[in-house]
């Protein structure tokens, strides 16, 4: 198993309040990790810290991604190294077409890897293939980024972008929230199709429901800024049944 991401004793705070209090996690290539936990446990903070969102201060510990100090890189370089975040609340960018947005993103990432930019033809072919893969409607990619998209469309658009960018590590932050069962099935189907032996994903979720579709290799329980329990996929079912309170002690 090749190591992809290693988080060691990570401490992070926002507005002076410590949220992550010594979190450790190791993700190898080919693995799917689920992180579950109650509200306020630090799930989204973990996603924000790993991707470099402004306002989060790392006060201790480390995160190494493919041998590099991830936390030392600016957010765009983390993305170019292959870290992708599927946002819990994707923002709208009026006036910027999906095509233009994706083309800029894909070519910026290629540039970072010393690859030539894709030609318009190759790019459009790639768009078409990936749209089919995630069952994305043509009309959505002709619109501005997320503008006027429904909740489900926004989430599907996140998976579409993930398909386009082919990350080594995808972090799915509450991708299931606000999805009806059909949308959930399509989004999860997309994630499963994108699974490769050399990539990995961290699925952050509040409910066990998503894990019916995306089967994790490991389930971690995040509680008060630390991972307090790790198990197989059966742990998710146990949590669903018992809630989180039994872990407090």
């Amino acid at each position, binding site marked *: 198993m090749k190591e992809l991401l290693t988080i060691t004793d990570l401490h992070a705070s926002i507005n002076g309040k410590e949220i992550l209090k010594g979190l450790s996690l190791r993700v190898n290539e080919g693995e799917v990790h689920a992180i579950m936990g109650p509200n306020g446990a630090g799930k989204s903070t973990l996603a924000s810290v790993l*991707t*470099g*969102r*402004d306002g989060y201060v790392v006060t201790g510990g480390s995160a190494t991604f493919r041998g590099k100090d991830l936390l030392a890189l*600016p*957010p*765009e370089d*983390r*993305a*170019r190294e292959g870290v*992708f*975040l599927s*946002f819990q609340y*994707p*923002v709208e*960018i*009026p*006036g*910027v*077409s999906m095509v*233009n*947005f*994706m083309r*800029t*993103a894909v070519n*910026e*990432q290629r540039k*970072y890897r010393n690859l030539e930019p894709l030609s318009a033809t190759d790019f459009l072919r790639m768009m078409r293939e990936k749209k089919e893969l995630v069952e994305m409607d043509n009309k959505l990619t002709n619109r*501005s*980024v997320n503008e006027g998209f429904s909740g489900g469309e926004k989430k599907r658009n996140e998976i579409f*972008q993930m398909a386009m*960018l082919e990350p080594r590590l995808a972090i799915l932050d509450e991708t299931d929230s606000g999805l009806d069962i059909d949308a959930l099935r399509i989004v999860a189907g997309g994630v499963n199709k994108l699974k490769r032996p050399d990539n990995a994903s961290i699925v952050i979720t509040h409910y066990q429901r998503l894990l019916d579709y995306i089967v994790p290799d490991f389930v971690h329980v995040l509680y008060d800024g630390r991972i307090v329990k790790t198990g197989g996929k059966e742990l998710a079912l146990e949590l669903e049944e018992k809630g989180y309170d039994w872990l407090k002690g």
Partner: protein
Amino acid sequence: MAEDILDQITNEEYKYGFTTDIETDVLPKGLSEDIIRLISAKKHEPEWLLQFRLKAYRHWLTQEMPRWAHLDIPPIDYQDIIYYAAPRKNAPQSLDEVDPELLKTFDKLGIPLEEQKTLSGMAVDAVMDSVSVKTTFKDTLAELGIIFCSFSEAVEHHPDLVQKYLGSVVPYTDNFFATLNSAVFSDGSFVYIPKGVRCPMELSTYFRINAMNTGQFERTLIVADEDSYVSYLEGCTAPMRDENQLHAAIVEIVVMKNAEVKYSTVQNWYPGDKDGKGGIYNFVTKRGICKGDNARLSWTQVETGSAITWKYPSCILQGDNSSAEFYSVAVTNNYQQADTGTKMIHLGRNTRSRILSKGISAGRSQNSYRGLVRVNKNAEGARNFSQCDSLLLGDRCGAHTFPYMDVHNDTAVVEHEATTSKISEDQIFYCNQRGISTEDAVGLIVNGYAKEVINKLPMEFAVEAQKLLQITLEGSVG
């Protein structure tokens, strides 16, 4: 983070900020009847034009500079300005006679003066300081009866046309700066499109201020006769200088029955440095009249330069069923100030106007939209739709909207919409997370925001304008 990025913008260089070392013929500083007589004499003008100038000058002496705009204009010493400067080698008959330094200047600016090298479909009139240097494709256009030449040549060869239309849209009494221009204007472009002719190429004038302490007071007059069409482009740059330079131009457009004029500007005068030192004062009066029925006029402007901009390209809709459009992107950064917009004056029946204004403010700049929609009592069925959007980058800049409506006919429909938005940290982070740097993200978002206006520009200009927006705002996020 926002702080760092705001600091970065200030390092952006103004790439047109060079000066050209050429011999210049200049009149002494200051303004008086004698100076005006000298300008007129230098240009061998007919008596009626000298009288026009003197009337304007005497009127100007009774005027005060307007103070109503949302601008902080430092006092201007009108006696400390040179009103006439000309590259010494005057009025070249062919390209061989043009000072090679001048040719180099326009080459550096990307303005092609050699006709064989010119992009297909664009004729250029290049104006340096006070005189027109060279007009290309004059002969090709003449075959169609189109007149495209410097204003001075028009006075010499087509005095009747000039006399008939000069001051007919912007009278010399119009406003302080227009009056000043009427007294001292030096050169500019003149266009006449005869009846039934569609001008086959874009006409373009390129203005360049070079000499020091010099004001540029150009005058453009465009007349589109019945059933004709022309698309006209205007570009401007100036060297970087510590002192402020005054630019007070007039553009007059007359659109006859069934004719159409499209006027596009990409204004990139030197905006001053990051501390607000230097830069051009751009006080311009632009107005067109849709004189005949079904006449159409559109103004498209991308304003990125100048320390202070005071400019309201306007339209008088006199002919029935005539229509006018105003599309504007105005960008201000650092200490730039802009007060810009339009006036749509509906006189004829079923006249229509549309206003789309996109303001972008960054740094410590102030950006105002000021627009008037007036519907007179005979303008049965007049319609206007105005949309004014403001985009703020950072929290030290200002955006202001001053819409005025003055409607005297019950059948008129006048609509106004306005929005103000900011580029949010979330939008920037979203782009970052996809591998797009903050600077590119701002460029992407700003160009998306301004797209509707940029799309109205002729192709080559649109590409330039997009780059210009990105350069002007490089890195400015809040």
